[in-house]
């Protein structure tokens, strides 16, 4: 196997995975802060999501009488699968062993695994809300997943590899080339990311209105540490999609060696890029309103169309040339 399966490689990979878990609430805190400022509010502290998680972890966990053991196992599975998916996306440096264990198709598969258990947990309660949330989540997931795959396939075909590290390496060595296929794929992936992380205009993460909620409806019966894990997994997913977008489409700054300088530069670069991306997302969430559920398929079909156009423009325009 490649020359990066070294002890230090595994060490950095473990560090990077821990960094994902540690940074995920911060991104949400920053997003909320920017959004609050745009709405002329002062907003909660950047560290508020950490405090929320701590509060939930310290509280008693209650489950409904009607649930089966799956309900209690689901938070751990959802959290683990999302974390594992995140660990395969290069955050600070490329060429880590985690990228060889699982490529982008596995990444999409692990996210699907998390989604399936989230939906099953929602249905396990046996109330109307859980089923409603599960049904809607699976609809959005079913339409978003192919768009996501097509977007990453555009990148994979360009780099002739489904390994995310190789994709980023290829992009870096190419220099700044404006490829039409990348623009389409970027558009598709951004739309997918908005839908999959449950942001406005597809879902509203702060709603508790029965008719509009999707993600929250499935979590309605969770409390204590179970809820903390579910919330944390959602925050990880947001960070994962953010990192995927910034590090694949704008990879400049990512470390290419395992030296401390490369790591530090990589961290500074990715934090800066994510801060900008989150600010853009906050502006989008402020100016847009949430769509009706049955407008979401049109939104996701657009994502699929963009990604497919990206792939087709790659195989038609760029391969032959």
């Amino acid at each position, binding site marked *: 196997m490649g020359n990066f399966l070294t002890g230090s490689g595994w060490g950095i990979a473990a560090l990077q995975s821990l960094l994902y878990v540690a940074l995920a609430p911060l991104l949400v805190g920053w997003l909320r802060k920017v959004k609050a400022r745009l709405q002329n509010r002062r907003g909660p502290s950047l560290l508020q999501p950490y405090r929320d998680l701590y509060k939930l*972890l310290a509280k008693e966990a209650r489950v*409904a009488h009607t649930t089966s053991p799956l309900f209690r196992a689901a938070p751990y599975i959802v959290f*683990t699968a999302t974390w594992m998916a995140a660990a395969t996306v290069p955050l600070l440096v490329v060429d880590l062993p985690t990228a060889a264990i699982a490529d982008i198709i596995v990444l999409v598969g692990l996210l699907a695994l998390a989604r*399936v258990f989230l939906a099953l947990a929602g*249905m396990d309660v046996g109330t109307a809300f859980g089923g409603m949330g599960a049904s809607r989540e699976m609809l959005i997931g079913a339409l978003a997943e192919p768009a996501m795959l097509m977007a990453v396939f555009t990148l994979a075909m360009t780099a*002739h590899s489904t390994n995310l590290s190789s994709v980023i390496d290829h992009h870096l060595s190419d220099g700044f080339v404006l490829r039409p296929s990348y623009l389409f794929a970027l558009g598709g992936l951004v739309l997918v990311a908005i839908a999959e992380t449950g942001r406005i205009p597809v879902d509203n993460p702060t709603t508790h209105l029965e008719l509009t909620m999707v993600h929250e409806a499935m979590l309605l019966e969770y409390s204590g540490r179970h809820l903390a894990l579910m919330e944390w997994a959602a925050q990880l997913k947001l960070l994962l999609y953010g990192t995927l977008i910034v590090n694949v489409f704008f990879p400049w700054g990512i470390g290419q060696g395992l030296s401390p300088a490369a790591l530090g530069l990589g961290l500074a670069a990715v934090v800066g890029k994510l801060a900008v991306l989150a600010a853009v997302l906050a502006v989008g969430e402020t100016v847009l309103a949430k769509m009706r559920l049955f407008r979401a398929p049109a939104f996701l079909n657009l994502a699929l169309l963009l990604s497919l156009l990206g792939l087709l423009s790659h*195989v038609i325009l760029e391969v032959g040339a």
Partner: protein
Amino acid sequence: MSLTALLTPALSMDTALHLAGLAVVLALLSSIVSLAARRAPWVLRRVATPLLGFVGLAALAAGVMALLVGEVVSVTLPLGLPWLPWHIRLDALSGFFLAVIGVVTCAVGIYGPSYVRSFEHGKDSLTALGGFSGLFLTGMLLVVLADDAFLFMVAWELMSLSSYFLVAFHHEHAENRRAAFLYLLMAHVGGLMILLAYGVLAAFGDSFAFVDLRAAPVPAVWAGVAFALAFVGFGMKAGLVPLHAWLPEAHPVAPSHISALMSGVMLKVAVYGFIRVCFDLIGQIQWQWGVVVLAIGCLSALFGVLSALMQTDLKRLLAYSSVENLGIIFIALGLSLVFLSADFTELGALAFVAALYHCLNHALFKGLLFLGAGAILHGTHERDLDQMGGLLRRMPWTGLFFLVGVLSISALPPFNGFVSEWLTFQAALQAWQLDSGVLRSLIPIASAVLALTGALVAVTFVKVYGIAFLGQARSRHVRRARRGPWGMLAGQGLLAVLCLALGVLPTWVIGLIDAVPRQVLGDGLPQAGAYGWLWLTPVSPQTASYSGPLVVLMLAGIGLTAFWGLNHLWAKGAAVRWVHRGDAWDCGFAPPSPRMQYTATSFAQPIRRVFGLLFQIEESVTIQEDGSTRHRLRIRDRFWGLLYLPIARAVESSARRVVRLQSGNVRVYLGWTLATLVGLLWIIT
């Protein structure tokens, strides 16, 4: 490798062939023994059905041995017609499909005895069940062993006819008889097409033996004709859209362990036939074939999964899902044909291996799911999802094994369905190597369809599992579901363990399958396991790598650490450590009742709305006199109106015209016979 070295002296193709012969003999024996079931009903449970398990074991051993040795052995049997002796041949391709048949049959043999017990006090004929089950297996085993078109067709008909009687087992219901008739009709139209395909090849090879057909110099046009006939014939048996209409009718009405064999194995025999004729016998592949197979595969996959999503009958849903999985297999075969026609043998082998891997996977998880559906039927006498709920607490083991099947079929890592889908995507991603721009842009569209299919499968099976096993029971008899006997659980458990094993250790499986493309296509996947058993690298490590064992290790490691850390290290205080139970949130109104839960129909409603154009949907809400409302929903297959009804009407109207010949006068009939004879003689001379 050491295990192989240890076994090498015992391994030989002759032993493998003997084992395969033993499997056939045991299957026939099981069939004959069942004749006694009329007098002594216990024969079916104690002798005939367990014998099927040994048939499976022998077939599995024969298949694995043939794959390990990787050679070819053939024998001419002293049976058949004087000038047309029967030939038997065991090579890697036959061996692989023998193993597929064997592994599911083995599980059915463990599961069956407890399941058929419930028929002992019914009025259905046990002799028919046992006798035709044995014959059905004999037919399938002989199809994959046959080495001439004559024996192939005899075995094929044996398989079709005996499965007809199994479909018609509960013949007291009119719809079962109708399903069985439709099956018989379509199986025979398909059989006719296959016979014609062999006829075309035999016309150039001057013999029905596969050796001569393989060497036959067939002109390109006639090769195309033979391909088209074979594709229609085998596609009809494999349930490809639009020739699928019989499958969702016939598979659900057979007893569940037979449904597992029909969906898990018989459809694979059709895939075997297609591979044998197109890849092996015809040999000279044209790119148009690949495009046709790819298109039909995409259509089947997408239409199959959407239809499955609309169903509320569990077994019918599983049958539609078989249409979808066969679509995926044919997508991979289509990719393989496209690559082979462009002389990319290694990529062709990659897609070919993906197709074979999915055949094996589908046999395992669809067998598992049908056995699970049978366990539910056994415990609750219910097939309607909208009556189920909360079964996980009543049937914990069945629930666990069914969950494994659900995760496998939804192509989620680290289960087996994911590996074959991953391989198919890897093959599709190599499309940039092709010269033709049309093909380069067609393959991405096919992979988009495959991605959409995979996502919709997850929706379908979340629906199945969530409605049937989670939540609260929606009817009284489901609330009192009985836990299944251990034999039934063991059969499911075997398949569930294999589903996980095949997902975690793909390099071993591919190392075993690799003999098939090496023999049939002349090139294998030497790269796949080149970096040890941990790493699956189908093309090269730079292109893609997947490590099933490490993914499982990390998932289990992180998950268990999180569980242990949170429950034992973190939550020290007793108040936090124990999980308390309470009522579900009722919004401050009446407590939630099981009737308030989402049903299978309501779960699928958003998807029905998005993809509704593909179906004929009649939906209405009427308010009755007493003020209550009634919701009516009817979903029909559009292909009935588009394809089947016009054909049925044309047959009927032509029959009405032909009826004029029927005067009732013997002399007129004799006249017609004479005229026909003279006409035939004139054509021959």
